[in-house]
């Protein structure tokens, strides 16, 4: 559970800024950003943060698609394989400080191991032919703890 307002938390911690060709965002000092080069595929960045001993990661996917952010978000959500669970949130429109998009959350279970919470925001704005998906994946018991970093990432994210 978020015990404090996200903007209050952000004021309390030192941040750094990461700038890529098409976007920028702030993240807590002490974290790191990695860029993956996918063979013949779309670019992908990952923010890694160690929050009180637990490592969390947040992914930024640039996707070449010819459909809207809403359609993309719905496709990801509806394609999810899990049985429908109470925590699932169908895609809904959001307007944050500088971005607009479609946000959703669902539980994923592969039938063998622990389930995951997958939460994502697909931005409405198309940049250079790409749609941007900002995603947070966590084990359910760690989800609330790492959510604050995800919220801060969304609130400082800017497309260029």
């Amino acid at each position, binding site marked *: 559970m978020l015990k404090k307002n996200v903007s209050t938390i952000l004021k309390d*911690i030192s941040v750094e800024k990461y700038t890529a060709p098409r976007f920028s965002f702030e993240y807590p000092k002490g974290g790191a950003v990695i860029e993956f080069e996918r063979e013949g595929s779309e670019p992908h960045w990952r923010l*890694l943060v160690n*929050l009180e001993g637990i490592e969390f990661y947040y992914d930024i996917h640039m996707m070449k698609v010819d459909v809207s952010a809403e359609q993309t978000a719905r496709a990801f959500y509806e394609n999810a394989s899990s049985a429908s669970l109470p*925590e699932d*949130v169908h895609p809904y429109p959001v307007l944050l400080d500088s971005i607009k998009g479609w946000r959703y959350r669902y539980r994923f279970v*592969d*039938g063998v191991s622990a389930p995951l919470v997958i939460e994502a925001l697909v931005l409405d704005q198309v940049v250079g032919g790409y749609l941007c998906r900002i995603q947070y994946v966590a084990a359910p018991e760690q989800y609330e703890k790492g959510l604050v970093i995800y919220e801060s990432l969304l609130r400082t994210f800017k497309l260029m």
Partner: protein
Amino acid sequence: MSPVIHMEIERVRAGAKQLSQTAEQLQEGCSRLLTQVRGINWQGPSRDDFIRQYEQIVRKTIAAAEEGIVLGQRVQREADEWQETDQGGVSELSVLAVLPAMTFSKFLGNTWSNFKGIFDPADLNEGIDYMLSTDAGKELIKEAEEKNLGFRLPDGRIIGSKDGKIIPIRFGDSGEGTRGVYQLDPDGNAQTEDQEIVISNDWLTRRLELSGRDGLGNTLAHEMQHAVDDQKGLLSTPPFEGSLDDEAAVEKQLGGELQQHVATEVRAWERGSAVESDRAYRDDGVVSRQEAQDILNKGYEERYEKALNDSEIGKKYTADVYLGESGKVQVDLKPKPALTPISI
């Protein structure tokens, strides 16, 4: 049995019928409302509490309706008995003992089967019988027999090879959110042959998702396909004997293992779907790019990444899983940077 003074039989029966129809509508309503409530555009801790409370209400509603059905059955029996007694000329002792149940069963007919699932979900034998009535299900069992593989239901019934390896199937805790699971190594000891298939016994899952024979048949076929693939040796890869420092070798090994996992998921989803809709099972033996992407997009991509990042590999690297140009699953490892713990 309470003494009956007066009964308008047709009206009583009409009332019982109405009760049946109401129960059916209740099932549909509960299912629809649950979907709508879960889809409310509201996110936050209070929402999750609200949804959980709402689920409890659905459970109570269904349980209450179930009690209503039992009452309806009693009324129906009373009506049957009243009619028999009223008609006279029939030995009360010999007929009343059997007639109520028979009449009730006939009276409800299809209506009962329509909403039976919510009060009396399909059992494993019903799911298996349905699966075996489909071509896709018969083919699956034939494949199992060819590999000397059989499946044992809780009542001792064996499907497939009776003399080969036997995998038990039971209802149990398959993991939150799952409908079923093929447990490769439940005891954690790779030397023991203890594989099993567990079908979810979660109260709501059984009533809303596994209530029908076709839905249950889908899940059974899905998990049995994994078992057949395992027996064929399609779920194992040679152990990695290289060094974790050899990034390229580790990436190649992991990519190969994940490709196998994706392939068995493709077959299992196809088998389950073919059984449920009673259509031909389609497998050309090749996992196409689209099939692999569909599996990764179901959340398996994130699942694989999380598993790798939480494993020994994750202490040294952070892993990205994706579908490469070749249509094969690729793993890209990046040395993990030093992170300074932060507190909030």
